[in-house]
């Protein structure tokens, strides 16, 4: 990602909602088929995401119904671990998952601390800075939803979250990938019709 090619711009008029997240209180709940690779371990199962007015809940259960973790986010920085299976309950892992899911669930907002940019491909980008560092949020100008979230590092991007969808209602799939640690999460929305 070349930061030099970014130029200031303004948000498309139809996108001035303040939030570009796929998961807001009026979107209902989502079920994703999920694949989580942590170092040499691979887990698969179903992830439930349920946004409400108070919080955004994310649960991971295996195909056989065993609950792996249950996190509830009250804000991007404030979340509670309702449950985490002892076998994966490691502080560093929980912290990483918390950061990843916080970014995935809330994306970034175009508040006063953020800047709206565009790149050589005419994509709209929100650049924000918080305690965790810089974040770049690539917006689809047609749907006003986030397409990609990037947390850049010194040499390469530390974290990328890609959202893929053919509809503006829900992401068909989400890919969370880390460069510095061997943690990848792949979500594919379950068609319940």
């Amino acid at each position, binding site marked *: 990602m070349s930061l030099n090619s970014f130029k200031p711009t303004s948000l498309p008029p139809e996108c001035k909602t303040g939030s570009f997240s796929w998961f807001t209180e009026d979107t209902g*709940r989502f*079920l994703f*088929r999920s*694949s989580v690779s942590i170092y040499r*371990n*691979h*887990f*698969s199962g*179903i992830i*439930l995401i*349920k946004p409400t007015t108070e919080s955004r*809940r994310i*649960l991971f*259960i*295996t*195909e*056989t*119904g*065993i*609950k*792996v973790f249950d996190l509830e986010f009250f804000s991007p920085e404030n979340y509670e671990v309702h*449950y985490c*299976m*002892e*076998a*994966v309950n490691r502080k560093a892992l929980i912290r990483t998952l918390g950061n990843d899911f916080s970014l995935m669930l809330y994306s970034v907002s175009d508040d006063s601390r953020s800047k709206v940019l565009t790149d050589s491909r005419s994509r709209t980008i929100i650049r924000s800075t918080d305690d965790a560092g810089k974040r770049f949020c690539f917006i689809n100008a047609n749907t006003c939803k986030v397409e990609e979230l990037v947390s850049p590092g010194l040499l390469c991007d530390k974290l990328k979250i890609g959202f893929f969808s053919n509809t503006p209602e829900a992401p068909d799939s989400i890919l969370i990938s880390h460069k510095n640690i061997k943690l990848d999460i792949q979500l594919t929305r*379950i*068609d*319940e019709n």
Partner: protein
Amino acid sequence: MKKTKYLALLCIMLFTVLTVRAQENYVPIADTRNFMSGLEKMSAETETIESDFLQEKNLSVLAEKIISQGHFCFRRENNIRWEYTQPYKYLIIISNGQLYTRDERNRKVYDIESNRMFSEMNKFIGGCIRGDILKDEEQYSSEFLESADHYLVKLVPKNEKMRQMLNEVHIRFDKKDFTVASIMMLESGEDYTKIDFVNKKLNTGIPIEKFSF
């Protein structure tokens, strides 16, 4: 030998046409020896089992249940095939100390004891299927109940860490043939997983290739 015996026994029990009866009245079993000997007899007479299954996952945060279904196969001594067809295809095979999983994108083989999470999950799930769990007095306290049509064994983990994952396990057996009708895993709060076994077929001669990967 004893372990193998109960493995076969419980797998046999997985094959019952489920008749769900709301609010069955259960009372303690007066003499559990009859129940246990019935299970052993059924085990001795059964080489293979196959069944359809319906799995309900109830999460208190979700108004509706997450429904999965598929097909189950067992062949003595220790071959299990657990095949989900809904909401998506996912296959689990346990054979020769290895656990194999396959979906549309990935195929994985694990030595069961090499992965801590799989080991714990497999120990529990396998224990329910094979019946080891029923005899594990060190890990579980048990209560034996019966109604007009079913036996019900309630298992409560003694280990605190285990109890954080599962409060209770309920295994229900059909009185007619001692096969397992359902397994219910109760977690904290109102969350639970219930697996009903339907359309049982015993001793159909499932080929060993069904458990290869």
